[in-house]
């Protein structure tokens, strides 16, 4: 059956291992050849509270989660109370019968863990085994995933899993299909983004921890050795970006990552990158603001901020991926553009993209690579040589033939300070000339994702892609998503929106920042659907709102 579409919600309190449980489930199903998507919802605390993870699996590609779930796996009573209304008709509830009573199928997970003297955290493995059993998954498949993904304490987890599997009743209804097709890679948005930068030639990642960007730092810290990326956790975000820029000036592609508050601290250095023409990629994983806002939830509210961050006027690029494959590709493109044009490039992500698990092939073969206009060694080196396209050839300190002078001050072509009016204009013009090349390169069909040709169009950016694409397909709307937001791909969008009579914009912020940008470029927007409760659009949510929109 090709319409198999099954969602499981795992819920409990922080410290119950809900995230790991969801991840194991997602990988288990992905290895069956199913397509999965994982959404993780957790408050900003370490123990207690309410965490839940939704894993949707289907026989077709999925990029979003649904509100209605088919199986609810409750590690505590609160999960049942909170999510009962989201259950579909033919649903199943699995719960820990050692700790509470509820309608549904109880398995004594805590009891199993206690009997086997296993660590309390392995209760999540017990729950995983019950879910596997109730959907008819062979034990050996589960065991293989535990062996692969839980290299620590594998034996005790296997024991817990076996016992729980035995105590869970066989499937009452639907069982999980197995697909003979490809097993697609599973990646969190941040992991895909990290690998994209590596594919382009990244050598340095420097970041101060901040949710939801921290997992990029963790990933590089863990895999930096094999990926050839030196990973640094400095004293603050200010040091992070300047350290990365120092590395870039020595010829090494470097990237930093943070969220809005950390980016606020980096703005001083962003302006320096603009003046000194330093290639740098900044990943800004948005979360709800202002200020500390809601640290572990999602929002697309920093577009206006990144577009104009930094004093003075200088060219920049803002890219906004919407899924793992786009994150991979755009991270590589970001590094390529930063080096080709010697400018700061911003990758605008958010919690929903960063921390959701995608199941997609990455475009490994068509990845953009870092390259730059290199100094040919003739005549005396001028770091800021004035050229027709505004791009000066690069040499690096250590080259015996060149004296490389990089500067935050306005300067002449050698990099010596100047305050002469003609020099100021000449240099500003040189830097801004790069915009012409950037427009040519980025106002292109591949920088605006389009699907369908309806007269009603749904336009979104970033992580709203998943829910929007699915709803657009279902309702026969034209789907339009600019991947680049600066320079704004005006000509391409005009083509993409040709024949559209009714343009709807959906984004997760309170004022409609993309909608405003579209209107500023002369695209009339009929409706703006906004969600700003820190949660992403679900498929159902967006569908409901679109029905509310007059055709």
């Amino acid at each position, binding site marked *: 059956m090709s319409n198999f579409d099954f969602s499981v919600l795992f819920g409990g309190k922080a410290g119950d291992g809900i995230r790991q449980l969801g991840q194991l489930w997602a990988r288990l199903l992905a290895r069956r050849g199913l397509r999965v998507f994982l959404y993780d919802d957790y408050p900003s605390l370490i123990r207690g509270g309410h965490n839940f993870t939704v894993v949707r699996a289907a026989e077709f590609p999925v990029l979003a989660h649904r509100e209605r779930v088919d199986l609810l796996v409750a590690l505590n009573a609160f999960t049942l109370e909170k999510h009962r209304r989201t259950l579909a008709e033919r649903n199943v509830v699995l719960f820990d019968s050692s700790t509470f009573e509820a309608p549904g199928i109880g398995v004594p997970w805590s009891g199993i863990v206690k009997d086997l003297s296993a660590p309390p955290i392995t209760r999540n493995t017990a729950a995983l085994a019950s879910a596997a059993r109730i959907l008819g998954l062979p034990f050996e498949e589960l065991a293989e995933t535990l062996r692969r993904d839980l290299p620590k304490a594998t034996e005790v987890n296997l024991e817990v899993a076996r016992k729980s599997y035995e105590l869970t009743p066989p499937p009452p209804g639907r069982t999980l299909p197995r697909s003979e097709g490809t097993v697609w*890679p599973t990646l969190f948005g941040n992991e895909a983004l990290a690998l994209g930068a590596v594919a382009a030639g990244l050598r340095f990642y420097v970041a101060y921890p901040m949710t939801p960007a921290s997992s990029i730092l963790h990933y590089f810290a863990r895999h930096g050795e094999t990926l050839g990326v030196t990973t640094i956790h400095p004293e603050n975000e200010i040091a992070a970006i*300047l350290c990365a820029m*120092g*590395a870039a000036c020595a010829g090494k592609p470097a990237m930093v990552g943070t969220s809005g508050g950390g980016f606020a601290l980096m703005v001083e250095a962003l302006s320096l990158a603009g003046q000194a023409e330093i290639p740098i990629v900044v990943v800004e994983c948005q979360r709800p603001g202002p200020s500390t806002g809601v640290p572990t939830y999602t929002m697309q509210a920093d577009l206006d901020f990144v577009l104009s961050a930094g004093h003075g006027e200088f060219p920049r690029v803002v890219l906004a991926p919407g899924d793992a494959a786009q994150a991979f590709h755009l991270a590589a493109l970001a590094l390529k553009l930063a080096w080709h044009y010697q400018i700061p490039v911003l990758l605008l992500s958010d919690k929903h993209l960063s921390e959701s698990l995608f199941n997609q092939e990455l475009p490994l073969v068509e990845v953009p690579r870092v390259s730059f206009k290199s100094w040919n060694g003739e005549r*005396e080196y001028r770091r800021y040589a004035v050229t027709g396209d505004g791009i000066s050839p690069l040499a690096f300190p250590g080259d015996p033939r060149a004296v490389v002078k990089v500067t935050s001050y306005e300067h002449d072509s050698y990099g010596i300070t100047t305050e002469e009016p003609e020099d100021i204009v000449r240099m500003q013009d040189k830097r801004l000339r790069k915009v012409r090349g950037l427009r040519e390169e980025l106002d292109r069909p591949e920088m605006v994702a389009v699907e369908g040709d309806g007269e009603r169009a749904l336009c979104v950016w970033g992580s709203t892609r998943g829910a929007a694409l699915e709803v657009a397909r279902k309702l026969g709307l034209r789907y339009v998503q600019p991947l680049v937001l600066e320079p704004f791909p005006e000509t391409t969008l005009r083509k993409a929106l040709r024949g559209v009579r009714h343009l709807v914009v959906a984004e997760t912020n309170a004022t409609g920042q993309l909608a405003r940008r579209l209107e500023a470029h002369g695209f009339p927007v009929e409706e703006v659907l906004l969600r700003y409760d820190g949660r992403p659009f679900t498929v159902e949510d967006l569908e409901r709102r679109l029905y509310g929109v007059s055709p």
Partner: protein
Amino acid sequence: MSLRSEKDPLKTYAEITWCPGCGNFGILTAVKTVLKELLVRDELHRVVLVSGIGCHAKIVDYLAVNSFYSIHGRVLPVAWGLKMARPELLVIGHAGDGDAYGEGLAHLIFAAKRNLDLTFVVHNNSVYGLTTGQFTPTSPKGFKGRSTPKGSPESPLNPVELMLASGATFVARGYAGRPRHLAELLRQAFAHRGFAFVDVLQPCYTFFNTYDFYNKHVREIGPEHDPKDFESAMHLARRWAYTYEAEEIPIGIFYRVSRPLYEEAVRVPEREPDLAAHLERHHR
């Protein structure tokens, strides 16, 4: 036109705009003395000067060597990145006292804590020069500046003591009025493997002229001091607390020890990773 002046291969065509009598001239002379030796050894291309913002920072315009004219307080993270990316570089930071001890203080403490392999030279004149005379972290209590007309209510910071406490492996103080002595300090600092900190007493002729005071009180540290002895380095550092009252101001090397380098623990070898294999192993 050429970056280098015809007469002096270390000099650029930039016109020097420091006030006559500025302590920065003494520092420039000392730096040039050591750079000239590197030029003779054909190693000058390994040098990168990083400066902040302030009168001190103009030094990068006056020397025909690689440089990064950074922003206020941000000399050290830039220097750090350069050194991490290319360990063969000889990275020398220059900063003012407002720059190093005000805006950039966190970076300074961490640079010392990490033992980055850099030299950091502070042009310490205890006054903001380029912003026309406000008090700084090392101005004496009661200093009458444009932001403290009734006298600074704060006591000065003792950067030598601070750097010793932060774990710097080379701590020295020089005086711009003794460029020969300063050149020797810089020579030792550049040669040090690890974080070399040099606080240079640098009179500001226009806003805080301390030449007479320093000429009277500065005393070179003699061979009786053992620079490996932390306690006696600390004792020496506390002899003068930047109060502009003391009898004697020690200059020279306070402390010098060897510790493992940060970069050796952190830097990973460059490689072209096999992404397909990585995906297979960790993501499928």
